[in-house]
């Protein structure tokens, strides 16, 4: 009788049956303007863009650390520190909004942020163009791409954005698995299954495995809130938006430690455990964590074409 009852309950949940796979592989090639991207690549590492000429975009978005910053918080001009961990610049074009709290709608909007931020690069637009126009190499390079005399700030941002659009990391083992080109190991397979069963997939889905919604950190078990943290509440001022952040991408997650906006996890294992506790309301067994971590490691893609 008891099993019969359980059977009814089980069959009732058949409506929750899975549709298609909710994760999409990255395209192998993305369209971008190579000339602009080459210029943007140069600018991305250009310390002239910071007030004391010590910081570049690449300072906080290291290509060797999955496009993110290995330091808990980035250090800007004059040694000033920020209050949030740098998110990865890889695959950023697939995020629905930019920054942890989504305050920028587009990459173009985003690119200016750090340049003007007094803690990060601390520059005026005019100073940027003034410095670049003083450098004949840049003047020529811009003229070759944009066909006008004189570098403008819009061109600078445009080139950087074009470069960022090219920062896509295709052909991760998982992408190849989704395309049927390879198989996952039993442990990785198990990890993906757990990932779905425990509900990680609810937020980490889509082409960027995240990056397409806001969620509360500490959905089931409250997570400590730092008043200074740049959460969605800082923008909307709604009580329900306290500790709400953009769900980060899980692509290249093995490379982008430390984790979370507050860099509170240094290892993947710790991050998975923390996440499942606070946001799924479950305490995972070591076996489950191991499997999920194995799965997460299959999300590391190839270095973007533009960097090769």
């Amino acid at each position, binding site marked *: 009788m008891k099993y019969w009852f359980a059977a009814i309950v089980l069959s009732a949940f058949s409506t929750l049956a899975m549709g298609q796979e909710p994760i999409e592989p990255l395209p192998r090639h993305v369209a971008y303007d190579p000339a602009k991207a080459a210029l943007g690549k140069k600018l991305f590492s250009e310390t002239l863009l910071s007030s004391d000429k010590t910081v570049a975009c690449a300072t906080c978005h290291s290509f060797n650390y999955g496009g993110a910053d290995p330091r808990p918080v980035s250090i800007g001009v004059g040694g000033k520190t920020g209050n949030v961990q740098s998110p990865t610049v890889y695959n950023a074009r697939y995020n629905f909004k930019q920054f942890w709290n989504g305050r920028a709608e587009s990459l173009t909007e985003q690119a200016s942020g750090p340049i003007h931020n007094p803690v990060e690069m601390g520059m005026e637009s005019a100073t940027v163009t003034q410095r670049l126009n003083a450098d004949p190499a840049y003047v020529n390079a811009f003229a070759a791409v944009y066909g006008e005399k004189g570098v403008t700030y819009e061109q600078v941002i445009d080139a950087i954005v074009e470069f960022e659009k090219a920062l896509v990391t295709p052909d991760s083992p998982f992408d190849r698995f989704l395309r049927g080109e390879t198989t996952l190991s039993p442990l990785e397979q198990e990890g993906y299954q757990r990932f779905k069963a425990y509900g990680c997939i609810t937020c980490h889905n889509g082409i960027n495995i995240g990056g397409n919604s806001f969620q509360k950190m500490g959905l089931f078990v409250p997570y400590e809130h730092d008043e200074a943290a740049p959460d969605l509440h800082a923008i909307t001022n709604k009580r329900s938006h306290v500790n709400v952040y953009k769900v980060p991408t899980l692509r290249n997650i093995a490379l982008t430690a430390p984790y979370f906006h507050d860099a509170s996890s240094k290892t993947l294992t710790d991050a998975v455990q923390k996440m499942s506790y606070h946001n799924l*309301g479950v305490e995972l067994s070591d076996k489950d964590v191991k499997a999920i971590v194995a799965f997460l490691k299959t999300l590391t893609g190839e270095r973007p074409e533009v960097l090769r």
Partner: protein
Amino acid sequence: MSALLRQIGWKPFLALAAGVGSFSLLLYFYLSQRHVEYNFREVRGHFHTIDRNYHRLNYEILRSSLFAYSNQDEITGDLDTLKHEFEALRKNAFLQRDAYRQSYRSLVRLGEALNRYETMIGDFMMLNAGIKNSFVYITSLSAQKVKLFEDDPVTYARILSIIAEVSQARILFDATFLGDLNEEVEPLGFLSGMSKEQAALIRSFMLHVHYIAANYPGFVQNVNRIETFDLDRRIVELETNFLDEAKRDYEMLDRFVVILAALFLTALILVIGLLVHAGNENRRLRKLEGELRHAISHDQLTGLLSRSRFEQLQTQFESPYLLLLNLDRFKHVNDFYGSAAGNAILKEIGLLIRQPVLEPYRPHYFRLGGDEFGVVLQGIDAERARQMAVMLKKSIEGYTFFVDDIEVYLTVSVAVNSVAPLLENADLILKYDKARHSEGVLVFSEELHLKEQAARNIATAHELKRALDRDAIVPWFQPIVRLKSGEVAKYEALVRMVGSDGAVSGPAAFLKTAMQTPYYRRITAVMVQKVFEAMAGYDTRFAINLGMRDLADEKMVSMLLSVLETYKERAGRLDIELLESEELDDLESVKAFIKRVKAYGCRVAIDDFGVGYSNFAYLMELDIDILKIDGSLISKVVGDEMTKHTVKTIVRFAKQLGFEIVAEFVEDEATIAVLETMGVEYGQGYYYGHPAPSPEGVTCNTRS
């Protein structure tokens, strides 16, 4: 030019302007309409995208709330498109126009609704994650771990009952089925006596049940709100308003286009009509001109080329010889047998001179005057030309003319000349010849003529100088009369020279010589001055004569203008009669002159029209008022049908161009009658009065 403009009139230009104007407007409105249509499509395109995305989004949200796994990229993507399309509409300049005020208001309301909708979706995304996770958790729990409590039937049943309740609420999407979950799950919280594994399970189970109890009602409400949200209504409202306003907009433009098209067509038809009319008019005038040209270039009586034709042709001849034939004492034949007989004889001579032996020399045959015939031969030598002259003389003199069976014989003098000016020199020989009574053929030789002429010139020049010094150059006056009433319309001043012996000579005696000397200008100046002086005390108009060639003479012109300036108030009563001259190559200066004297109120006449140059083309180009028909035509207008025809043609033509017409040499009432029937208004001649030293001295013949 102005005559030409007068002819065409202003109507075609007005019609043309209206046509061009309405066409431009038509084009403008057509383009506006295209613009409206283009924008209309674009805006509707945005509507459709918004509508489509909105419905897909709703579907995605439902799907996401039902399926455990869903790709939220679809939701964010659709929402993004929705916002993007809305922004595009908001920035669309078309919708910001006054005509679309209603639509823009709807658009703003749609924007507000869209913001609320976005907020609801944000809430949904956050709630949905937790709700789904809890349900998934509970599912997996039931499947595997509830067995842990098989030994504790109470707890076991309680867990299953809660799961059943939760799942029923989930299936029915109704939070009321949850009952008082919190209270039901509370007893499970007594964890004592449980294994560590059981306790952990219960903790998680309670966590999720609490979460569902706390959030599911809100979630259901949220989803219901999204699904019943009125964004749809806003879209429809916007679309309805937009369609209404666009229709109005379009209809207005449509009406404009129809009106303008009608206007354009009307203008077009008007232009075509006027052009056709102008074309007919032109053809008619050209035909008239052709007739006139033939009448002028051919002698009506003999059919030979006319004197005016000779003037035209003489520059085109190649080394020509002119044989000038003058019938001796022909006047006597006329007087004796009557002019009808004379004319018949002249006709016959016209045929006689066309000798086949002349054919090789490309002959042209002219009747140059009353009894003067000319034969121009080309490519002939002097001796042969003389022989031909002798041959012609013999053939005419040997011919027997009959007048009513009476035999008439004629003698003829022939001059042969190849030295320019052809006619003048030939004429000279004839006179020379006759003066010496040496009948026959005489060939012109340079010395023959020049010596005598030079002597004559010098004598005349001396005489002129003396006359000027003695103030003996005076105007005589001849009246020009209105044919109908006989009243004097004006006086024409004619130059006279009073000799020291008191004899008065006319211009023929001295003017030709004067033209070669500086005295000519002085004579003109004296004449103009004296005419103006004479004008005091009269209120009729006065006319003076000028050669067209004089008008290219700047000194002459400035002299004339300064006199006009001096007598400004009388200048309005002055007519200037222009005499055609053979070489009129500076038409522009004539035009300029006419324009300047017209500024003083002077009127301009063409004198002696019908002989000489008589070119109608330039007549149309000059802004003249009066045409004086040459006396030689008028004197023959009674009795000679051909002449009558010619004059009639000239009058018709002149009237067509709006000229006032004056006939010269009006000498009898019969002529007046004929002229009146033709519509000639003014006459001048001995019938009305001979030239006299003062206007009062004129004897005037008025009809009562």
